[in-house]
């Protein structure tokens, strides 16, 4: 009950300075948190990634109580509880259930070739993955981007959205691209789109310098290139709760047991 809670909290305040320090150390150790937090500037309302991760946290905690649930959809792409306007929220699956660490990354750099330049139009996103957890392997990674409705679109037109890993950049020439995932969506669809970028994530984990980002193309059925912004794909200048981000699932190597403290 709330009164009990208040009473218990006050007993924490009664602890001596040393006991409080010991308690904090104990909590940091049990939660596996990396040391004492540096004072965080008060954060603005959470953006898309924290909202998604908070949803995932609640789904994982609920699973802890009840038992497993998310699966992969037909294309084999993971879908966790989507933060907003999700059309389907399947239960948790092995990738999420078995993940030891899940990290979300906000994109750092965003380039694009849009209507003012020659076709094909594209948009590039690059994430800073440097703080990857040591000794863990990537089991899955997704790039999530929000698609909103735009005026002037024929709702029933089909858009082919493809995501490539940028492998090698050549001066004054097109870089080498490797296709990661592609989705065909109706122009009139609104909500989060998730692209499987696991192979790129693995590649970047092994060779951090090779992280040159990903590139997104949009084409119509007649192979006509459209600008991502024009079809309603939101970039980092969009509302915070709908900005693109990347989420990566990690699995720790199977240490036999937790070392005693």
């Amino acid at each position: 009950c709330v009164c009990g809670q208040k009473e218990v909290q006050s007993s924490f305040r009664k602890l001596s300075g040393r006991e409080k320090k010991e308690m904090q150390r104990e909590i940091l150790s049990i939660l596996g948190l990396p040391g004492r937090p540096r004072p965080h500037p008060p954060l603005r309302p959470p953006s898309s990634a924290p909202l998604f991760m908070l949803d995932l946290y609640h789904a994982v905690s609920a699973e802890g109580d009840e038992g497993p649930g998310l699966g992969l959809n037909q294309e084999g792409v993971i879908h966790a509880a989507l933060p907003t306007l999700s059309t389907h929220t399947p239960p948790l699956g092995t990738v999420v259930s078995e993940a030891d660490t899940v990290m979300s990354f906000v994109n750092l750099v965003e380039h694009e070739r849009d209507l003012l330049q020659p076709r094909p139009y594209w948009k590039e996103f690059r994430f800073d993955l440097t703080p990857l957890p040591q000794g863990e392997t990537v089991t899955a990674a997704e790039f999530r981007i929000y698609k909103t409705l735009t005026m002037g679109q024929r709702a029933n037109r089909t858009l082919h959205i493809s995501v490539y890993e940028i492998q090698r950049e050549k001066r004054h020439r097109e870089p080498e691209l490797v296709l990661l995932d592609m989705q065909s969506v109706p122009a009139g669809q609104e909500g989060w789109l998730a692209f499987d970028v696991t192979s790129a994530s693995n590649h970047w984990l092994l060779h951090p310098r090779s992280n040159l980002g990903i590139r997104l193309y949009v084409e119509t059925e007649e192979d006509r290139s459209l600008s991502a912004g024009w079809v309603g794909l939101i970039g980092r200048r969009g509302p915070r709760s709908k900005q693109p981000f990347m989420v990566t699932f990690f699995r720790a190597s199977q240490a036999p047991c937790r070392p005693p403290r």
Partner: protein
Amino acid sequence: AVRHNSPRKKKNKYDLPHPNRPGIFDQHHANSGRQACKKHELYVSFSDLGWKDWVLAPPGYSAYYCDGECDYPLGSCMNATNHAMIQLVVHLIKPDEVPKACCAPTKLSPISVLFYDDNNNVILKKHRNMVVKTCGC
């Protein structure tokens, strides 16, 4: 050779007393007026610790601690968790003489934490095998 015709099944003296029924030792403790060692819960909210903008979830942590007279004090050379484990084994061998450690880990439960790293990335960390804090009394 095993004798098949033993008329009565001999009671195994290592049978644990039923956990919910107070053991012989508990009554003894209560009578002697000493406060037996008991597990308590201390809830620590992360806003108390000034971590609110750092840890997104959970809102706090329930730390367990033990308080009371310990019949088997050990020196500082062993930490509480290992002490409780050993006391549990010794209790199995001498249930009438050695009390069960009041907080020996019985159920390993997972715990998850969601926090910001220094680059404002959000990390969800899951710990599968959590040991309940034990006091080793």
